[in-house]
């Protein structure tokens, strides 16, 4: 898809099986699980595959970024990332006989290259992309089977030179004295052949920084146990160079106008620090369960994220909301499970300063429209964090948007305390939250507030909205919150039942 002259593929064509270049290595185009992405995909890809492979990968990379922001220790990051990969971007070892290895690897391959296109366009994006990709590669390297990993290492040149016996003898003492993170006793038990690899020191700055190599004349003598450092650095350097090249070549790609909106959307989501959209279709049982108009106020206080709390408070206070606010809040309520009839009741009661006539004329149609009952009859989804963060910024008298991003620091802090102190948020929690906000990681701040306000329900720091996932959608926030409450109630009931039986 990135090959010259092939860019004008048709939108509908799926992978052409008869394509000669695919046939060349059609048996196993991907012999290894690990991939250095030296070669771009040279087969046709449908627009759908293009987008879905990228979205799956974006989700993983965004979660990796969240892990950095939250200062997760590497082991924890590994567990979370590995879990997310299994769910959204599986990549199995050759030994996994049941998995469709080739198709998994193809998705991995395509996704990586699509994101290169999306992320090569600014220095900031490139830097973040490289860091996240490097971490993903590292997690996969660590979880790879030793045999398969060695086969991968043999499959490509890493530009190192094995240190010969003569040289090894010459620097014997120095090589032995190089400190290692691994204890001597463990070292002996490891299958370390005592081999050393020679590279320019600039290729292993991380090892030089920790004095984990012997240096002579600018050459770093890297012990076999640290070999992975060379591989990771090589991965990073390669990717940096490739992104620079892609950035320079990108203007030529602009011809294909169908790709541009997709790429824009992908990079925007990453910039906003939000993984791809939370899909309400995959959501929990807690929603869609017929929320009554009069229940909304109570639900808001218990389960809504700050953006929706703010809209709800504004509506209650002003008896009105401007257009963008109505849209953001209305669609959220729809997905929350408020039926069209209940929605009309809710909005009518809320807008109690206007006449029935005015309400029917000016608002009823819009509400029905958002439910897909008027006009184009489209089923409008609720706005995701990414959309709320990046679309129309709120003006002076408007209440939509993301408070973490659009409020002043003072206002945000008072709003948080006013909204969530009943659920356990304390003044002492604010510095950490504000620190994250200042760094521009709004969704991480929101996730942290979720964790704090649900700690009574057993949510621990780092757990996010389940499995370490960050908040990416206001409805996901609310759904998870309601789920937790339901689980708590069920447990209480079970306990009570158990007591009755025992008693």
């Amino acid at each position, binding site marked *: 898809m990135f090959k010259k002259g092939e860019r004008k593929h048709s939108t509908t064509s799926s992978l052409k099986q008869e394509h000669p270049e695919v046939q060349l290595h059609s048996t196993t185009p991907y012999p290894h699980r690990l991939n250095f992405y030296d070669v771009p995909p040279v087969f046709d890809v449908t627009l759908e595959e293009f987008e879905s492979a990228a979205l799956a990968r974006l989700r993983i990379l965004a979660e990796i970024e969240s892990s950095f922001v939250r200062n997760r220790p590497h082991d924890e990051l590994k567990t979370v990332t590995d879990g997310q990969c299994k769910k959204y971007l599986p990549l199995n070892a050759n030994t996994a006989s049941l998995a469709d290895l080739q198709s998994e690897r193809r998705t991995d391959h395509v996704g990586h290259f699509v994101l290169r296109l999306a992320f090569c366009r600014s*220095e900031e994006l490139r830097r973040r992309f490289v860091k996240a990709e490097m971490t993903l590669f590292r997690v996969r390297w660590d979880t790879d089977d030793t045999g398969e990993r060695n086969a991968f290492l043999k499959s490509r040149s890493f530009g190192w030179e094995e240190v010969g016996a003569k040289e090894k003898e010459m620097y014997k003492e120095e090589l032995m004295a190089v400190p290692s993170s691994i204890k001597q006793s463990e070292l002996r038990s490891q299958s370390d052949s005592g081999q050393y690899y020679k590279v320019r020191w*600039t290729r292993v*700055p991380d090892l*030089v920084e920790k004095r984990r190599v012997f*240096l002579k*004349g*600018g050459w770093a003598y890297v012990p076999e146990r640290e070999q992975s450092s060379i591989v990771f650095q090589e991965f990073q350097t390669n990717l940096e160079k490739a992104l620079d090249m892609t950035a320079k070549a990108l203007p030529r790609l602009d011809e294909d106008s169908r790709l541009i909106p997709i790429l824009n959307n992908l990079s925007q989501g990453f910039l906003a620090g939000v993984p791809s959209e939370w899909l309400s279709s995959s959501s929990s049982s807690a929603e869609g369960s017929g929320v009554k108009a009069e229940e909304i106020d109570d639900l808001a206080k218990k389960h809504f994220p700050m953006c929706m709390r703010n809209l709800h408070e504004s509506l209650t206070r002003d008896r009105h909301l401007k257009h963008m606010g109505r849209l953001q809040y209305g669609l959220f309520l729809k997905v929350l499970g408020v039926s069209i009839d209940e929605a009309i009741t809710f909005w009518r009661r809320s807008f109690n300063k206007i006449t029935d006539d005015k309400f029917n004329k000016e608002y009823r149609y819009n509400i029905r429209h958002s439910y897909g009952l008027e006009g184009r009859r489209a089923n409008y989804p609720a706005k995701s964090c990414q959309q709320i963060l990046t679309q129309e910024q709120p003006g002076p008298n408007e209440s939509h948007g993301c408070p973490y991003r659009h409020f002043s620091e003072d206002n945000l802090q008072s709003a948080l305390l006013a909204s969530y102190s009943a659920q356990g948020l304390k003044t002492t929690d604010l510095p950490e939250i504000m620190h994250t906000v200042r760094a521009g990681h709004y969704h991480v701040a929101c996730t942290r507030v979720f964790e704090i306000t649900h700690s009574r329900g057993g949510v621990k720091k780092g757990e996010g909205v389940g499995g370490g996932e960050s908040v990416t959608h206001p409805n996901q926030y609310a759904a998870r919150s309601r789920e937790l409450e339901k689980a708590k109630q069920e447990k209480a009931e079970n306990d009570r039942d158990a007591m009755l039986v025992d008693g």
Partner: protein
Amino acid sequence: MAIAKDQEAPSPELMLAFYRRLYPFKSIMNWLNHEHVPTKLYTHREFAFTLQGDVYLRYNSFNTVEDFKKQVCTLNPTRFEIGPVYSARPRDKKTIRPGGFMPLLRELVFDIDMTDYDSIRTCCSDAGICKRCWAFIAAAVKVMDSSIRDQFGYQHLLWVYSGRRGIHLWISDKEAMELTDEQRKAIVSWIAVVTGGKDSHKKVNARLGSRPLPPSLKTALEPLAHYFGDLILTDQDCFASEEGWQALLHLIPDQSVVQKLQDKWSSDSGRSSAQKWQDFKREVKGSSQRPALQAAMEDIILQYTYPRLDAEVSKHRNHLLKAPFCVHPKTGRICVPVDPDQVDDFDPEEVPTVGQLLKELDETMAQDSPEGEEHHSDSDRTSLKPYIEMLDRHAMALMDEVRRIKRDADMTW
């Protein structure tokens, strides 16, 4: 403590005369540019000027030596600094799209300053420096110069006196120029051993547990042991005062040894540093904790003599550093190059001041030579001459290498 002679800020008139008649603009260009004809190494290079009244002008750049000299003589700065080579001319910075202006190349630089030795030197304090405490800098130069050459393989090292109480190192090897910030950070961590804040006693933590020192430090230990004997034990007599020997005791990991030494030293205030070190050595020999104590002895030698770096200067390509041959605005001394092989004999108090140089010049001018002769040879008439020759030799070696690389590249065609 040394009372510095004729230490007063040079007047603007003196500065202007110095720039007009003595400053080696051409030599500086050759050194920065590695070739006779200006390349991007020169034209895309940032110069920052500090003017009278501490006005700071950044992102200046020049196409030729003449442009540069003209501007310096117009602005008459108190000093100027050299920054990185950017992807575009720094003076065009405002007209370049964001992202199109970034630092690409830069000498790898190091800064060693006497300030970081204030807690151990006994002869001077604050801004003061004398031949005796220069020995700390000399030890640092010896160790850094040989280890960078041996371990990193760099050859084009220029040491420059900072004009008051420190020294700068500029490394111009091609690989060194190209280092990323990440790589610069790595080399700093490799070299820096004396870390830990003011409040920690033990500032050397270079080994894992009680394991031997890494080979690079083992090599440094031998010359430093000599400096330790001469400088710390004899000249500076660092452990003579109670404060001094208490600091030493804090670095000894065995409490029974500490107790014994403490009793002995507090009852005999006349014991010299050398005697105290002998006392310590004797205790180590007889101790059951011998390996740990020997490691501690090595760490102590490092802590007192190993180079102390101002690490931030080295870590970023876009850090600015005062140009060689500038005049120190407080002392009036010239930032002259220093030969690392002669660093032990270098005396900061002997470095010419701008006032002295212009006096020398006036005296020789009075003797012969009609007015209006070529100004660039003026420096030959002063004690600045050997220093400029040192820079010229250094630049020549760089230019020879560039010529050789170009010739080799031609041969392959």
